[in-house]
C-alpha cells in the first residue's frame, strides 16, 4: 500500500465568515500575509511527509477559502525541487476548464523534468462549480475533457517531428514540448470515478482510478474498474491502479485522535458551504441525469452508513468512521478500520490520506503524520500482501 499525504490547504481563518466558502466569497476576507504563512506551513508538512516515506498529492480549486492551491503544477513545481523521494501526484488538473491544453502539457513536462521523473498526473473533470470561474461551457463538458486529454497525451508522448493540431475547441500551428517529460512514454495518468460506469474508461486506458470520500460506493467503483480492466486487457489490474481518499487522525490515545478528527471535520462542513445555484449548472450533467437527480432527492447522493442508511447532514466522528470517510483512533484502531474498509471494497493499493484537513494545527498534523508513518504505514503491507486475486477470480 502506497500512502499519499494530502491537504486541501485551506485558508481556515475565513471559516468564521458567514455564508459560502466558494465562488462568491470575496477575497478581502483573505489576509495575504497570513495566507502565505499558511501555504508555507502546508509545504513544510509535505516536505516532512517526504522524509517520513509518504508520497504527495496536490489538488486545486478556484475562488475558494477551502483550498488555496489554485494550480496543482505551481504547487508541485515547488515540491519537485524541495522533496527527494516522494512521488508527486496532481489530482487533479481540471482539464476541461483549461483553455490551453498545450500549456498544461508544458507544465507537466517541466515538473516531471525538475523532479527527476517523480510526477504522476491526474486529469479530472473536477467540480461542477468550477465552470463559474473558468467560464468554460458547462455543456458537452465530457466531450471537451476527452478532446483536451487527447491533445495533452499527444503532446507528452510525441517523439517525432513537431505536429499541428485542429479539433473542435483547439487549434495549434505547432506543438513542441521543451522540455519533454522524463518518464516514458508519459508520467502515470490518474483519473477519478464515483461509479462503476465512470471507472470503465480509466480501466480501458490502463490509468489509475481514485475515488474520494465515497465510502461504500468505492466497492462498486473498484468492481467496475476491475471488470472493465479484465475485459480490455485480459488480466486483472494490480491493486496499484486503485486509490481511496479518506481523512486519517491517529494519536496514542483515542480521545486525542477524536479531538483532532473534530478539527478535521471542518473540512466537510466548509466544503459543503456553496450556494445552490453553483452546485450543478444546467448543461454540466446531461438533462436526463438532472431529471433523475431531481426525482431521487438530495439524500440519494449521500454516502451510506454500513447499515445502508444515508450519512446524516451533520454526522458524528463515529458515523464518519462507520461510513468509511474517516479512519480515527489509536494506531491499532486505525489499522483495523483501514483493514476492514480494504476488505469491504475488495482491496486497493493507494491510500490518499488527508493527514491535514480543516483547522488541524501544524503541531497536530506533524504528530499525525509521524505516528501514522511509524505505527500504521508498515502494517499496511500486510493488506497488499494478501492481494485480491482470490476474491476476484470470478472476473479473470
Amino acid at each position, binding site marked *: 500500500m502506497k500512502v499519499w499525504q494530502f491537504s486541501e490547504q485551506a485558508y481556515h481563518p475565513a471559516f468564521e465568515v458567514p455564508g459560502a466558502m466558494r465562488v462568491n466569497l470575496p477575497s478581502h476576507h483573505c489576509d495575504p500575509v497570513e495566507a502565505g504563512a499558511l501555504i508555507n506551513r502546508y509545504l513544510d508538512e509535505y516536505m516532512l511527509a517526504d522524509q517520513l516515506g509518504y508520497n504527495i498529492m496536490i489538488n486545486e480549486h478556484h475562488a475558494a477559502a477551502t483550498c488555496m492551491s489554485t494550480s496543482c503544477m505551481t504547487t508541485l513545481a515547488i515540491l519537485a525541487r524541495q522533496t527527494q523521494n516522494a512521488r508527486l501526484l496532481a489530482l487533479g488538473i481540471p482539464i476541461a476548464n483549461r483553455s490551453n491544453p498545450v500549456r498544461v502539457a508544458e507544465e507537466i513536462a517541466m515538473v516531471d523534468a525538475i523532479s527527476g521523473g517523480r510526477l504522476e498526473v491526474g486529469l479530472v473533470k473536477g467540480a461542477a462549480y468550477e465552470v463559474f470561474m473558468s467560464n468554460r461551457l458547462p455543456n458537452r463538458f465530457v466531450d471537451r475533457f476527452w478532446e483536451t486529454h487527447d491533445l495533452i497525451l499527444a503532446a507528452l508522448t510525441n517523439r517525432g517531428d513537431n505536429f499541428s493540431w485542429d479539433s473542435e475547441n483547439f487549434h495549434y500551428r505547432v506543438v513542441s514540448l521543451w522540455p519533454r517529460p522524463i518518464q516514458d512514454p508519459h508520467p502515470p495518468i490518474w483519473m477519478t470515478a464515483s461509479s462503476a460506469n465512470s471507472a470503465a474508461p480509466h480501466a480501458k486506458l490502463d490509468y489509475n482510478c481514485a475515488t474520494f470520500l465515497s465510502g461504500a460506493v468505492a466497492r462498486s467503483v473498484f468492481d467496475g474498474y476491475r471488470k472493465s480492466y479484465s475485459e480490455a486487457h485480459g488480466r486483472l489490474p494490480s491493486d496499484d491502479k486503485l486509490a481511496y481518499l479518506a481523512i486519517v487522525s491517529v494519536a496514542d490515545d483515542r480521545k486525542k485522535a477524536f479531538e483532532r478528527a473534530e478539527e478535521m471535520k471542518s473540512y466537510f462542513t466548509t466544503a459543503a458551504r456553496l450556494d445552490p*445555484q453553483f452546485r450543478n449548472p444546467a448543461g454540466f450533467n446531461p*438533462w436526463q441525469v438532472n431529471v433523475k437527480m431531481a426525482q431521487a432527492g438530495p439524500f440519494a447522493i449521500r454516502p451510506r452508513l454500513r447499515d445502508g442508511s444515508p450519512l446524516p447532514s451533520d454526522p458524528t466522528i463515529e458515523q464518519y468512521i462507520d461510513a468509511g470517510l474517516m479512519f480515527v483512533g489509536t494506531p491499532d484502531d486505525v489499522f483495523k478500520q483501514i483493514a476492514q474498509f480494504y476488505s469491504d471494497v475488495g482491496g486497493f493499493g493507494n491510500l490518499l490520506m488527508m493527514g491535514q484537513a480543516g483547522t488541524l494545527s501544524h503541531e497536530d498534523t506533524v504528530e499525525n503524520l509521524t505516528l501514522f508513518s511509524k505505527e500504521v504505514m508498515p502494517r499496511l503491507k500486510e493488506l497488499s500482501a494478501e492481494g485480491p486475486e482470490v476474491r476476484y477470480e470470478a472476473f479473470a
Partner: protein
Amino acid sequence: MSKVPSLEDYLKDAKTLELDGVSLEYFVKGEGPALLYLHGMDGVEGSAALIDILAQKFTVYAPSHPGFGASDLPRHFSTVDDLSYFYLDLMEHLDLNDVTLVGFSFGGWVAAEILVKDGSRFSNAVLGAPLGLRTANRREQIVTDIFMLDRKDAEERMQFKSPALTDVSELSEEELGRKARNAEALTLYGWSPYLYNPKLEQRLHRIKVSTLVLWGEEDRIAPTTYGDGFVTGIKNASFETIPSCGHRIYTDSPEAAADRITKFKNAAAS
C-alpha cells in the same frame, strides 16, 4: 384573463416535423396572417397564454427552439447563429411569406439574428425585451446574470407577477425533462458571451422591416435602456413600453402584448 391549460393538455396539440436532421416540436394555432413566434428562456410552454390570444388574429407558428421542449439538439448546434439559419430554412420549408416575426427575450435575440441574415419573408417584427446585444461592459453588468442567481431569485426577477414556484418533487417526469432541457439549451446558447453576440450590433442596420421594440417598464433582467441599442441600430424601429410588466412580458401582460402586436401589424399593413 385567459385560462392557461395544464402542460399535459397543452402538449396534446404539439406537432412534429423533420428539417435539417432536427425533429422539431411546434404548434400551429389560429387563423389569419402568418406569425412566427419565438419563445423565451422558459420554453414554448411559458408563452402558452400569449400564443392562444394571438391565435385569435393570426396563424401562429410556435416552435420549440432546437434543444428546448421536445425539439432535438443536434451535436453541431451551439450558437444562436445555428438557430437563425435553421429558422430561415423553416420559413422556406413551410413556404411562408409576409410573416409577422415575434420573439421575446432569448427568442427576441433569435429573431434579430434571423432578420440581419434575411428578412425577405417577413413583413414586420416585434421584439419583446430582446437580448443579443452586449449584456455587460467590463465590470458593468447590464443584463442580470441569471446563471449567478438561485432559482427563486431568478424566477422573481423574471416577472412582475409573483412566480408560481413549484417544488420539483411535484413535477411530472415530462415537465422535469422539459425544464431540464430548456435550461441546458439556454446554457449552451447563452453561457459565454452571456446571452449576446458581439457581432449583432453592427449588423442591426441590415434589418429593413418595420420593427416594434416592446419593453416591460418593470423589467429587472434587462433594463428599458438596454432596448435603446435595438431602436438605434434598426433603421425602422419604434419603442413602446408596458406598465406593471417585467421581463416575461408574455406572462405579466399577455393581453397588452397581443394588442400591441396586432395593432402594429395592422398599422404596417395599412
